[in-house]
């Protein structure tokens, strides 16, 4: 049995404390945020089995566009070989596994930098020089496809052999996220922020409304009425909620035009949702954000936050200036959180730390932490 599985077994008595009812439950033990073995097991049990959003369709808008991405070291290519088709495949040459594509761009072919094996942008092997004498039939060879599905403009992938059908996975969100109309939005920006903590501290932080009034009082903290927030918990660690806040800007004033599907709602509307394992979706009356939280190492994480607007927003006067302000606002929010989550990371490895109890405001964290235990203990 692997060291990680042994650790999971030994931690069960601590996990049981998280499994208690919310009013007496404890947060997860530090080991799950600091152990390299458990991190590796999370890749196997969570990231290699779940549907994951890896790109926006605008990032491969034209025929011939491609981009590369890595999910915990698994290098993939996302490409558009024809007008209505987006494909995802492993970025591993069929010869010895070298990454054939790098960065992003528009090409007809990839020539592997090692031995010049040539692939079409659809991943099909076009030619393998020097292999004429080889008796292995390469005529149908193709870079290994990864199952993918486009939903509301997001490219989702699933690395599992037999993934759960996408429709089944997305059902709660298809049903309840009336506000997440990103199929009617365009990508305004993609903000990348690196934080020195375990990925779970960030997915938990992004829904920890409990801290908002304290940490974010200089940005949006003054505007959220946290106590009135009610979480709707969905299967598989998912959740969503709707509450009253203000538009996501320094002044709290609305900057961009109201989302067409929210014109009949109060201007202070705020909606959030969590799609397990690493997606946090957020809406205000004039904007949508999709936070993607990517594990990089046990104690470092990359956040990619996509800023989305309906097309009208791009036409406002001073759009670039306003976008710049908004982008800085988003960075500032994470900067405010970073000090805290990096401090959590520090304690996670300490033998002196015992997890404390939870507030009712932490209901969504409780839901996610328990779902995590289900996945990891299986």
């Amino acid at each position: 049995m692997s060291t990680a599985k042994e650790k999971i077994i030994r931690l069960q008595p601590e996990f049981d404390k998280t499994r208690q009812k919310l009013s007496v439950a404890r947060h997860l033990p530090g080991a799950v945020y600091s152990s390299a073995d458990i991190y590796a097991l999370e890749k196997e049990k969570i990231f290699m089995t779940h549907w994951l959003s890896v790109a926006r369709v605008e990032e491969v808008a034209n025929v011939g566009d491609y981009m590369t991405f890595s999910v915990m070291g698994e290098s993939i290519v996302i490409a558009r070989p024809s007008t209505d088709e987006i494909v995802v495949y492993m970025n591993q040459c069929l010869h010895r596994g070298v990454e054939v594509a790098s960065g992003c761009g528009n090409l007809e072919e990839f020539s592997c930098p090692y031995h010049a094996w040539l692939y079409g942008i659809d991943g099909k092997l076009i030619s393998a020089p020097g292999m004429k004498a080889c008796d292995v039939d390469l005529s149908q060879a193709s870079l290994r496809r990864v199952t993918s599905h486009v939903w509301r403009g997001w490219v989702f992938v699933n690395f599992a052999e037999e993934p759960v059908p996408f429709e089944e996975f997305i059902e709660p969100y298809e049903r309840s996220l009336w506000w997440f109309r990103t199929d009617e939005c365009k990508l305004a920006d993609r903000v990348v922020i690196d934080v020195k903590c375990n990925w779970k501290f960030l997915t938990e932080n992004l829904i920890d409304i409990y801290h908002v009034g304290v940490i974010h009082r200089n940005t949006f903290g003054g505007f959220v009425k946290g106590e009135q927030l009610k979480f709707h918990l969905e299967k598989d660690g998912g959740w969503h909620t709707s509450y009253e806040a203000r538009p996501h800007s320094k002044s709290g004033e609305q900057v961009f035009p109201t989302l067409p599907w929210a014109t009949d709602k109060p201007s202070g509307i705020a909606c959030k949702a969590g799609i397990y394992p690493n997606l946090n979706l957020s809406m205000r009356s004039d904007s949508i954000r999709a936070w993607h939280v990517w594990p990089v190492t046990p104690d470092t994480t990359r956040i990619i936050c996509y800023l989305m607007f309906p097309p009208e927003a791009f036409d406002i006067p001073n759009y670039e200036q306003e976008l710049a302000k908004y982008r800085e606002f988003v960075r500032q929010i994470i900067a405010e959180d970073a000090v805290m989550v990096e401090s959590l990371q520090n304690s996670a490895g300490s033998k002196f730390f015992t997890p404390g109890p939870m507030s009712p405001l932490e209901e969504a964290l409780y839901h996610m932490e328990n779902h995590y235990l289900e996945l990891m203990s299986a």
Partner: protein
Amino acid sequence: MTEQWKQVATVDEITEGDTLRVEVGDQALCLYRLDGTVYATQDLCTHGQASLADGLIVDGGLIECPLHEGTFDIRTGAPVGAPCKVALSCFKVRVEGQDVLVAL
């Protein structure tokens, strides 16, 4: 259009069934000898960064690029085997005594 004939090689430098890379100013050409006749095309493959002179003459009259093993017709420059798609520029060749001349 006036042609400029330039001497680029001598006949004994190009063996039957073989190639020769020559540089003329800032251009590189590839010379070939097929059934006694000398031909000339651009040396840089139109598909990738490779010298066609480093390739093999195959199937009677094709030059196979060493990089991805695509082929062009030596006599016409036409792309034949994948992944070649764009034709090579061809140059007229004249042999005078020991001299091989190319029209530029």
